[in-house]
Every structure is written in C-alpha cells, then in structure tokens.
C-alpha cells in the first residue's frame, strides 16, 4: 500500500514537471565578426596576397 502511494506521488510530480515550462521570450543580439579577410586573385608576379589586420575587405574586380 505504501509503495503504491509513493509511486502515485512520483507519477503526479513527474507529469506536472513535464507540463510546466517557463515561457521563453524572443531576444535580439548584434555581434561583430570573429574574423574577416580578403582573397586577392593570385597573380604569380605579385605572389599570395592577404589583408588579415586591415580595415577593409574587397569584392568585385578592380581597374
């Protein structure tokens, strides 16, 4: 008898725990890049170019 009461209490508690959830609210965040760089088209005469620490990156075709 005592065993069945304990089991019942456990089941009721577990059910309440599954039903009860804290409502999650939407949030907004703004972040900066963790890294950025430019891929400069390879020209043998110039060698491999990069710009890890520069203030700018580039897109498109120059000249």
């Amino acid at each position: 008898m005592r065993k069945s009461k304990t089991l019942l209490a456990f089941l009721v508690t577990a059910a309440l725990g599954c039903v009860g959830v804290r409502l999650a609210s939407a949030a907004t965040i703004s972040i900066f890049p963790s890294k950025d760089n430019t891929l400069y088209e390879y020209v043998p005469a110039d060698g491999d170019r990069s710009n890890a620490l520069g203030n700018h990156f580039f897109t498109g075709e120059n000249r």
Partner: protein
Amino acid sequence: MPLAITSSPVRTGEIRRGVLAFDIAGSIPPCSTITAVSLSLNMSRTLLETARIVELHKLLADWGEGTSDAPGEEGDGAPATTNDATWRHRFFDTIFWAMQGGDFSAIVSASQSAGPVGFYTWNSTQMVSDVQSWLDNPGFNFGWLVLGDESTLGTAKRFDTRESASPPVLTFEYTPRAMPTPRPRPTPPPRPTS
C-alpha cells in the same frame, strides 16, 4: 581574302572576394531558434557609383587570419603571412582551397545592390537557415564569402572590417529553448519508528 584580325579581350583586372565569420554558438544559448537575421556592412570606397550586386555565399571550409596588413587604400593587399586566407590558401602556405578563390556554396544566401558609398543590409530566410545551422553545428561555421560583380572591370567595392571604426554587424533574433520549471521533489513517506 584578307585575314580578319581579331583580338581576344585582355583582362587587366583582378578579382577580390571578402570572407567573414561570426561566433554564433558563443553568443547565444544552444538549442535556440533563430527567427531573423540581417548583416550590415559599411561600403567605404568604390571605383564607380554604379550599382552592383553583392552576394553572400556560405563558406564550406575553414580559413584563417594571419598578420598581413595592407598599406594605403588596401586594394592590393599585403604579402600573405602564416595562416592567412589567400586566393589559393585556406591557411597560408600549407592548406589549399579545393577551388581557387574559396570553397563556397552555389546557393546565394542573400544579395544586395550596392552603389554609392554607404551602409547596406543583407537579410533573407536563407541567412536564417545558415545561422541556425552554425548554432546547431558550430564545427561547420565558416561564415560567408562576399561575392561582388566579377563580370567586368571596375566593379570593385571596399567594405569595412572588424578592425575599422564601422565594423560589420550581424543582428539576429532568437528564441531560447523553453526551460522546464523545477520539479517539486516528492515528500518521502515517514519512516516508521520502532
């Protein structure tokens, strides 16, 4: 019959592509749901004010930043240093891209028309999907390649980096995973006293 004199077009331009990545998993709780994403870039210099399409494509392999620092207007870059991403390398000078110019998805994550100098914003449902995937699988977060108009000469656009006073900003909305409320512990039955 006179020979037709033809000349093949001589391209003297050189292509540039930007790459940038954001630490998503380190910024918000795991298992969150991303609902909106936008990327703001400051375009600070352009050869011509003609509007050009600039696309974001998800990168498919990791890449690095060394210590290269281009002089002047930075358009010609600087000699690559150890672990720099270059046209040929993911990490200079030991690990190469599978494709020169970067390994990136053919899917356009977002596109924007950029003309005169100013701030431009990219947003799309594909960007939401990209950021969600980077949150769920941080090991595959290699960021976006920024692809400009490479169809003709003089399309270059210069954007500001994280080292500048007007860095790229990724803004996103998310909903954290709902947390279960603490469960009350069942009261143990009283012990019979002897």
